[in-house]
């Protein structure tokens, strides 16, 4: 789900293509490759950066940049999004292509999957048309060995005319050699190869004669305009292909407006009519170009790759037949989700209580300390009752579930299960006229909705991408999970005891998530029929091989990279809000505190939708981060009257009950938590990704109106039926 320190926090907003060295003297290296070839693992191993790698296509949606030192030089490494080609069918491909073309990297490393090298070579051959400075990294050699696929790296290097290094990045094998090769390639970039005759020339694809003739008409002239900026042969090919996005980028980065050049336009016409005379329409031209690249890849592989047995993916197929079977596919999916929640809830229960009693113990000491110091009561109020208590709550309630949920979810992700979820659910999305990959962006939303929004880049159709962005908020992020878990435990699972309790909690939480998915589908459908009219676009989803996750690494990564980061952000937001709340609750206008006044104002409306003024206020104040909604509710209640020691959920339950909470209030809070406006970071990310305030507003209003409507219906139906 692409939750990195980059994509969970403010880094989310830094998603534009940045073409710069982290340090001017650094060598700039681009890291390209197909999705799911372990590119991010290579990146992490080289830079030591904890960017999370997931086993599904399209994980790196933002540009991660990192540095490493090898021998006497520093290198800036740019991790490009995983792409199958550079033909700019999608935002990701455009980013990758633009960086290689205009980012001026000293060398480009293309990471490939040894277990399906042939398909990976297309990208290599494409890239060789743009630049010679390529180092080929054949990754996942360990996996290939297991599958009895042998790769002759020397032969591959001879065929392609570029350095080829074999790696197993997960175990760190071959990385030193890779760094050596990159070092050399980057050096060679500085000194043109005139003085030092290269052993071999990098392979350039030669197309059929009629295409070569068409290129020959155009190339000399293009070359005259572009000088050394770009490979003129490749640009000519793209001009004939009618690649508008390249033209736009040429103008953007190099300020060349090729088509306004009358001579060029005329030459282009000449080329096209040559092709036309040869009986090639634009589609046939494209077919021929693609077929030629494929045939080169086939030929190279026939020499360099030996596959001992064709049954190497039988095991994967067997697993797929169970996990995506007609009968078991969807039940297994829901079951797994439930299981993850069950383990989370059961496992988090005890540590949560321990943390809480520990942290509130400290509060007592702090109080004693302040009393001894003789500070005015308001200092103690702001710092201890305001800031510290909010923090204590956020930590004790959020940390344990997150520290369990994230590693578990990461395990599923690393196994390669998430693409199967998209495969299972695609038909539902198709019926909603949306894209099956929306299931993947929803999974990303579990971690952080803002990351989910950026993840929507993996959806190519702008219409479907907007739908996915607007509905992403129906998946509760980690900021909302603790709220849901706490309420479920207090109000619904409380009547059960022993193991049944956590089973019921997990089942209820799963039901809430399933409801979120159903709402996503309904709203997607409504959007498709109204403001975002359209038919489903084409869909091609890769189901990568299952991979054994490295359990130790997963735990370390998800705890340090995700859990602590997300928690850190929550703390940063919660502390000032704790202060504000305490002030609001303790500044009186007349006899009534500001907080109560606000709450009273909101109360009539809030009651209509099954909440109360304080709760609605908490949701509004929780706009910066959803994590702090429950702490705000607690603080407002406590400030508004009965002071309690809040060190267990049962005491919390007492507090809520004393403020007239019923099971219906609990249900409505959960529903509203599931369906209300996206948090501040998410809204800004939507604005950034959609480039439109209008759609940001839509993404704000649609879940909000949905939530209000659903809560209204539920609350009033229950009241009418006399259930409360």
């Amino acid at each position, binding site marked *: 789900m692409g939750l990195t320190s980059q994509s969970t926090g403010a880094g989310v907003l830094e998603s534009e293509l940045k073409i710069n060295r982290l340090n001017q003297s650094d060598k700039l290296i681009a890291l390209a490759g197909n999705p799911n070839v372990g590119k991010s693992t290579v990146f992490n191993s080289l830079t030591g950066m904890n960017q999370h790698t997931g086993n599904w296509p399209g994980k790196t949606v933002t540009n991660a940049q990192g540095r490493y030192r090898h021998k006497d030089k520093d290198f800036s490494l740019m991790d490009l999004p995983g792409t*199958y080609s550079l033909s700019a069918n999608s935002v990701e491909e455009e980013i990758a292509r633009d960086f290689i073309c205009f980012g001026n990297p000293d060398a480009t490393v293309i990471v490939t999957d040894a277990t399906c090298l*042939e*398909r990976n070579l297309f990208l290599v051959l494409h890239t060789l048309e743009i630049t010679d400075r390529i180092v080929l990294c054949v990754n996942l050699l360990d996996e290939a060995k297991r599958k009895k696929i042998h790769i002759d790296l020397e032969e591959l290097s001879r065929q392609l005319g570029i350095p080829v290094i074999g790696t197993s990045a997960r175990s760190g094998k071959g990385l030193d050699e890779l760094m050596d090769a990159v070092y050399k390639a980057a050096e060679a970039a500085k000194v043109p190869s005139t003085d030092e005759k290269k052993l071999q020339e990098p392979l350039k694809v030669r197309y059929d004669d009629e295409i070569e003739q068409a290129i020959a008409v155009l190339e000399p002239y293009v070359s005259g305009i572009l000088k050394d900026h770009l490979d003129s042969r490749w640009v000519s090919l793209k001009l004939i292909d009618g690649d508008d996005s390249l033209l736009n980028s040429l103008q953007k980065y190099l300020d060349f407006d090729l088509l306004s050049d009358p001579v060029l336009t005329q030459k282009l016409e000449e080329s096209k009519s040559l092709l036309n005379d040869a009986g090639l329409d634009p589609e046939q031209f494209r077919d021929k170009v693609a077929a030629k690249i494929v045939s080169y890849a086939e030929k190279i592989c026939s020499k360099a790759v030996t596959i001992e047995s064709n049954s190497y993916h039988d095991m994967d197929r067997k697993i797929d037949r169970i996990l995506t079977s007609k009968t078991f596919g969807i039940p297994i999916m829901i079951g797994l989700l439930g299981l993850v929640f069950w383990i989370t809830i059961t496992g988090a229960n005890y540590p949560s209580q321990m943390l809480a009693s520990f942290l509130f113990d400290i509060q007592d000491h702090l109080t004693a300390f302040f009393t001894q110091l003789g500070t005015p009561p308001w200092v103690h109020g702001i710092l201890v009752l305001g800031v510290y208590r909010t923090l204590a709550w956020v930590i004790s309630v959020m940390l344990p579930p997150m520290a369990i949920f994230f590693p578990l979810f990461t395990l599923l992700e690393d196994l390669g299960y998430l693409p199967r979820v998209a*495969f299972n659910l695609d038909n539902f999305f198709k019926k909603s006229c949306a894209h099956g990959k929306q299931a993947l962006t929803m999974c990303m939303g579990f971690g952080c909705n803002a990351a989910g929004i950026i993840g929507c880049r993996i959806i190519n159709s702008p219409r479907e991408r907007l739908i996915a962005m607007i509905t992403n908020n129906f998946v509760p992020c980690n900021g909302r999970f603790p709220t849901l878990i706490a309420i479920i435990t207090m109000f619904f699972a409380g009547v059960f005891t022993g193991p049944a309790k956590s089973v019921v909690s997990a089942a209820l939480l799963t039901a809430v998530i399933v409801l979120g998915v159903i709402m996503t589908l309904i709203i997607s459908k409504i959007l498709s029929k109204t403001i975002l009219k359209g038919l489903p676009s084409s869909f091609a989803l890769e189901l990568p091989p299952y991979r054994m996750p490295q359990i130790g690494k997963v735990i370390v990564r998800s705890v340090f990279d995700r859990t602590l980061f997300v928690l850190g952000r929550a703390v940063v937001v919660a502390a000032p809000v704790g202060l504000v709340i305490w002030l609001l609750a303790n500044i009186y206008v007349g006899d009534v505190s500001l907080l109560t006044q606000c709450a009273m104002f909101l109360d009539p409306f809030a009651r209509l939708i099954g909440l109360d003024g304080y709760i609605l206020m908490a949701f509004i104040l929780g706009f910066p981060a959803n994590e702090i909604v429950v702490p705000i509710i607690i603080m407002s209640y406590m400030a508004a009257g009965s002071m309690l020691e809040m060190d267990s959920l049962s005491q919390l339950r007492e507090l809520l009950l004393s403020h007239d909470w019923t099971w219906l209030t609990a249900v409505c809070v959960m529903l509203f938590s599931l369906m209300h406006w996206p948090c501040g970071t998410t809204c800004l990310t939507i604005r950034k990704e959609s480039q439109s305030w209008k759609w940001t507003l839509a993404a704000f209003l649609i879940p909000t109106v949905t939530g209000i409507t659903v809560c209204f219906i539920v609350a009033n139906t229950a009241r009418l039926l006399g259930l409360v």
Partner: protein
Amino acid sequence: MDQYIPLNDLPIGRKARVKLLSPGSESRRRLLDLGLVSDTEVEALQKSPSGDPTAYQIRGTVIALRSEDAADIIVEAI
């Protein structure tokens, strides 16, 4: 055997050779990028729980395609 069918009609477990990508289809470029050119061998592996999309083995990788998109690919069963 000289039997041309759209890929979505290929029974599960059967193999076929790509003959033609229907002109004008939206997914053409993308399919070409995946190496789905003339004479590529594909195998229908399995359908998703609700019958669509279907997973195909294409050049050593597994790609799921919706029936509408698979219908644009004309194959010869082998």
